[in-house]
């Protein structure tokens, strides 16, 4: 996994406003490898995962299979009369929060020539989960069944002078809602409770080329096109075409400087947007590295956000594309066993898409006409004696609604101003222990600054031992304080203390 920070809409496409995570599939080594994981825990939670990689023909093959499930029947507490000071909490047991999922991933890579590789990747999953609703409006009969499959093909060649790739992929998702209606739930199978069948698909093709321009410069260009479709019960059928052009340069300059100009043009049906960006970095010394970036970004709402009802999320067909103007700057300091990352960011949004509780029991995306999101991040990673490793991070966020009117200058909902995370871990070839604390400050629950999600502190810890050969046994405890009053952003109760026993081995 690669973490990319900054305004990256030009590099990674629409939506990469604050950064992007790249997931790179594992490559097979020269011999077969594999792993297995089994876990069981509180509230009927289990996981079984198996993966393997092996040489195959002129390349390699990777396959992974995973089964997950939970009964989700944890206890939680809530107040019946929250307006009264010191109102008592009453105990409840979460119902209809069970979930099951099966997933499979397979990848086959074959070298056609020493410089050319053909890659095939497919991923599929099937799930069945209850939709229990928020604590104040439970829905015992609502369920969601989903299936999705993705398949992609890539032909890629690379040499010292450049590289090019052709990619094509397609994706299909189906969601069936049972016992769901606009207000509350209903009994699946009864005449007045029709199932809601929704399907989404897309197909894309992309060509990418990268050429060396001398010893210190690269230029790359990408063109992609495709089509997305959705259709389903009560929503009709929609489709839209997407085209994008992108170009990027990588210039290595004397003195440790590097420049990365980029531009991307997106056309999504009738909406179009340009995402130019310029990022620069300077490795001042072996100890200090500085980076800065500027960019415009453009994110059209997804077809799902526009039209599909999924779980507790309601669509909003009136959504407009989100656009932003952003600046960021950061520094990395490496001092022996200590690495410190710091960054500042500032973005001005037009039509920012924000999810808000939509009474009685849904969450719905809305456009905020104008908004500013600024903040700072600080992260420290320290290697300590006795194989201890410590990590701490803090983020400050100032997300302000700038739309003129009653909401102007209010904080945007569901964006906590302060987050603090700390973790200490120790690992050797026999033992593995860790403990972590996560604090999230109180945050607004609406656009008007009149309702808040309370601050939350969660402590987690775990320990593991290698009992034989590659076999490890871990015990993890989450929410050590057993706070049963925790709720997520949309008033869905969260589990109290939970324990998981995990066995894993990697060969």
């Amino acid at each position: 996994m690669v973490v990319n920070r900054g305004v990256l809409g030009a590099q990674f496409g629409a939506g990469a406003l604050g950064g992007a995570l790249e997931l790179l599939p594992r490559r097979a080594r020269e011999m077969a490898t594999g792993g297995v994981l089994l876990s069981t825990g509180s509230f009927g939670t289990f996981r079984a995962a198996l993966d393997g990689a092996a040489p195959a023909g002129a390349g390699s093959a990777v396959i992974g299979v995973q089964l997950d499930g939970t009964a989700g029947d944890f206890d939680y507490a809530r107040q019946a009369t929250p307006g009264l000071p010191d109102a008592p909490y009453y105990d409840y047991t979460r119902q209809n929060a069970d979930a099951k999922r099966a997933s499979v991933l397979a990848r086959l890579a074959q070298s056609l020539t020493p410089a050319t590789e053909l890659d095939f990747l497919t991923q599929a999953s099937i799930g069945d989960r209850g939709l229990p609703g928020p604590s104040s409006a439970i829905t015992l009969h609502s369920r969601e069944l989903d299936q999705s499959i993705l398949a992609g093909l890539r032909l890629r060649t690379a040499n010292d002078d450049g590289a090019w790739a052709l990619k094509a992929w397609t994706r299909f998702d189906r969601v069936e809602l049972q016992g769901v209606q606009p207000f509350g739930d209903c009994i699946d199978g009864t005449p007045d409770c029709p199932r809601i069948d929704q399907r989404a698909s897309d197909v894309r093709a992309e060509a990418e080329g990268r050429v060396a321009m001398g010893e210190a410069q690269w230029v790359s260009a990408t063109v992609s096109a495709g089509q997305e479709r959705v259709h389903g019960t009560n929503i009709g059928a929609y489709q839209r075409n997407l085209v994008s052009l992108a170009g990027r340069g990588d210039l290595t300059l004397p003195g440790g400087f590097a420049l990365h100009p980029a531009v991307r043009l997106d056309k999504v049906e009738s909406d179009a947007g340009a995402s130019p960006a310029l990022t620069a970095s300077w490795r001042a010394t072996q100890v200090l590295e500085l980076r800065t970036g500027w960019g415009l970004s453009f994110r059209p709402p997804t077809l799902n956000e526009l039209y599909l009802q999924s779980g507790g999320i309601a669509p909003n067909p009136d959504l407009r594309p989100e656009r932003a103007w952003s600046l960021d700057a950061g520094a990395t300091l490496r001092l022996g066993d200590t690495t410190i990352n710091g960054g500042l960011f500032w973005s001005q949004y037009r039509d920012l898409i924000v999810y808000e509780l939509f009474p009685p029991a849904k969450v719905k995306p809305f456009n905020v006409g104008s908004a500013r999101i600024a903040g700072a991040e600080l992260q420290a990673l320290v290697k300590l004696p006795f194989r201890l490793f410590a990590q701490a991070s803090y983020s400050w966020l100032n997300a302000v609604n700038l739309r003129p009117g009653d909401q102007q200058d209010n904080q945007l909902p569901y964006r906590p101003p302060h987050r603090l995370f700390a973790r200490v871990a120790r690992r050797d070839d026999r033992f593995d222990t860790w403990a972590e604390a996560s604090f999230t400050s109180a945050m607004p629950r609406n656009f008007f600054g009149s309702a808040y999600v309370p601050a939350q502190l969660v402590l987690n810890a775990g320990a593991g031992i290698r009992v034989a050969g590659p076999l490890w046994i871990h015990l993890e405890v989450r929410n050590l304080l057993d706070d049963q009053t925790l709720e997520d952003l949309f008033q869905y109760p969260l589990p109290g203390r939970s324990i998981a026993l995990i066995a894993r081995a990697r060969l």
Partner: protein
Amino acid sequence: MHRSIPVLLLLAACGGPYRAPPAVPSVPLPSGDALRPWDPAHPGLARLLGIAQVGDRAYAALGNYDASFTARGPGMLASFVPSNGTISLINLGGTADKECISAGWVRPDGGLLYVTCSGDFNTGGGNAVVEVNPAGQGTVTKRFEAPVSPAGLAITSNRVWFGSALSGAVYALDRNTFALAVGPIALTCPATSYQTTNDLAVVNGELYAICSNDVGGVLNRLDATSGALKGTADSGPIAAAMTPTGDGRIAIVSAGDNRLRLVTISQNQLVVQPAYTFSSQTATLQGISALNQFVYTTASDSNTVQKIDLSGSGGTRLVDEKSVGSCDQATGICPGPWNILPLDDFQALVTNQRSSTIVAVKWDH
């Protein structure tokens, strides 16, 4: 619910706070065939909404739609004496039981009741405003087929005003002929997003109407005969309901920002004061009523009702809050309190829209 004047008179006559006879804890509601389903195989549920009082009887509007919010029978009024809870039904349906569908708001005036029927959202039929004489078994005396889905209403000596649930507009009926006299009159509304006119009230001979959406809301001050606009003020987002208070102000609950606003009326202006912010866990403010120095509110997603004192020197104060029950852990049905009718300063009746029940609330303070 504007009952402060008669109660104050009674209070003055008796020399102490008025105490209504104790209400029964819950009022059993009819179901099945008693709700006159159009198809006996698919009966509706009571689905209680507005509630009002005339004399010693309470009258609650029955939406008569099923679990999936599909109308299944005519709109009705459930009539009962709070101290014994025995229900009798007044059918508002008219011809073929389809001239009033989804009865919602109820307002009393001059011994009569006025009810809006918001209609069948699937077929578009059954939009109506009806006048009911509650005497005897109760009869519909006048009926108007509304051109829009009507929401809240307010009564003057010569007009029956109602708002449009799906737009920012009000209409007026001539109270004698029950013919459309004025309207539609476009209200001042938030410029963006949808518009709905949830509630109306008559205060000091003037008409007030709230037009709102999820972004904001506007209280419109109108001439009660012509509908001419006389002024506006902020009502807050998703302004669900309003009521005249015992001290001559207007109280508005806004579900969008969880606030109670008080509007002070003078000759030339309306002064709005955010008077109380409900707890963050209080969700979907729905109804409001007033009696003496108190206002009473319902929150349909947190299943709570509140008693708020407007008379304190330090400002408005939450006196008490009650739960009308939690969601049934076996069926998942939540109460969903919609409207509240204070019987005196110490007890009130609450209509629960989702559980189709009426419960009595007794305040500890």
